[in-house]
């Protein structure tokens, strides 16, 4: 089986998984709670179906693919915003501070993203390469913001709802892999580019499985373990001894 055939199979698998995910979102009415994420999933499904339909016509395929990709990147950033709102909305005390840090992070990420475009713009002799540069910059912002969300929620000790955690994890995974592939794509030969396409396809299917898994799995119950009274007293005694030494 040739590499091209494997890529094609992975692509078809991706479309199948996207269809299942779209059905799950509709069935669980998740689009009411996560409208931007649902729009992102439906757009990807539409883009994949459209690309499949116009695959034979290279020019139409090019424009269809990159228009969907551009809208997908904007929606991806919208999903990050939706995750942010979901994580911080129950905590008004943290929300204001988190918003400020989030805005600073956006500015802090846009600067290196623009820097990356500027540094490589001299090599951008063709439209596809320029599009790859723009995609790279957008992915830097997207992955950076998801990393920021994970770090920030860990510092504040926040707990993620299962669905939201899955959304962030899947988006982060595909974002990180896309960042690597679009960065390397302009520097490699066509054989390696095919391998990168395969890696991208597999990682996209993995992200779809992550989203499906976290959407379908039941929310974990909070298991709170309380230490025994004797333990508490032992601890207090130990500390009292330590500080009175």
């Amino acid at each position, binding site marked *: 089986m040739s590499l091209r055939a494997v890529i094609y199979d992975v692509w078809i698998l991706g479309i199948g998984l996207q269809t299942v995910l779209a059905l799950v979102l509709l069935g669980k009415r998740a689009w009411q709670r996560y409208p931007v994420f649902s729009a992102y999933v439906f757009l990807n499904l539409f883009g994949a179906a459209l690309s499949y339909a116009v695959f034979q016509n290279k020019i139409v395929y090019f424009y269809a693919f990159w228009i969907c990709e551009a809208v997908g990147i904007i929606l991806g950033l919208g999903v990050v915003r939706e995750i942010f709102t979901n994580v911080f909305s129950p905590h008004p005390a943290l929300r204001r501070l988190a918003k400020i840090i989030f805005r600073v992070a956006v500015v802090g990420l846009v600067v290196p993203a623009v820097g990356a475009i500027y540094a490589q713009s001299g090599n951008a002799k063709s439209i596809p390469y320029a599009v790859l540069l723009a995609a790279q910059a957008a992915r830097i912002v997207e992955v950076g913001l*998801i990393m920021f969300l994970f770090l920030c929620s860990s510092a*504040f*000790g926040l*707990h993620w709802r299962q669905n939201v955690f899955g959304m962030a994890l899947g988006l*982060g995974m595909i*974002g*990180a892999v896309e960042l690597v592939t679009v960065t390397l794509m302009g520097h490699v030969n066509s054989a390696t580019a095919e391998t990168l396409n395969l890696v991208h396809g597999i990682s996209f299917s993995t992200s779809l499985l992550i989203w499906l898994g976290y959407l379908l799995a039941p929310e974990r119950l909070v298991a709170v373990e*309380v230490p025994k009274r004797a333990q508490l007293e032992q601890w207090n005694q130990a500390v009292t001894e330590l500080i009175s030494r």
Partner: protein
Amino acid sequence: MITVIVIALALCAVVLFYTAVRSRRKQAAELFRPVDLNAFRTLMDRDDELFMKEKLPRSKFTRLKRQRIRVTVRYVARIASNASAVLHIGETARLSSTPEVASTAAQVMELAAQIRLQCLVAMGKLLLEYAMPSLQLTPAMLVPKYQSLRENVRRLGDLQTQTPIPLASAI
């Protein structure tokens, strides 16, 4: 160069996501750890520290202060961890159909979030003081806030009659 930086960023992201998944599994069994507020108050007492500074030789004071800071950091970490656990249980209680339970849970969560923030500030200050023991930064007002959290958690426990565990006495 840009390529290397970008790939490094992507790898960092993957490592971070892996760590997040692992820590989420650990969080599934949350553990409340007791905090002795009297001992903590003594550790944070600045008069006590001034007394030691006057009476002890500089090297001994530095060693003792760093030792105190190490213990204090453990206390602050416990308080932060308990506040985080309270945030977690508060989320469930906040959705209660009983308005009083829901509003008390919201108060508890607000307080726990504030404590969590103060713990971050306290950690920063403690790290600075550890690096420069002669520094005496304003201590974070953690004790009164934490006491208030305990009281609110107790009130929440009283309201939720089905709660089998006396959480307030455990934290």
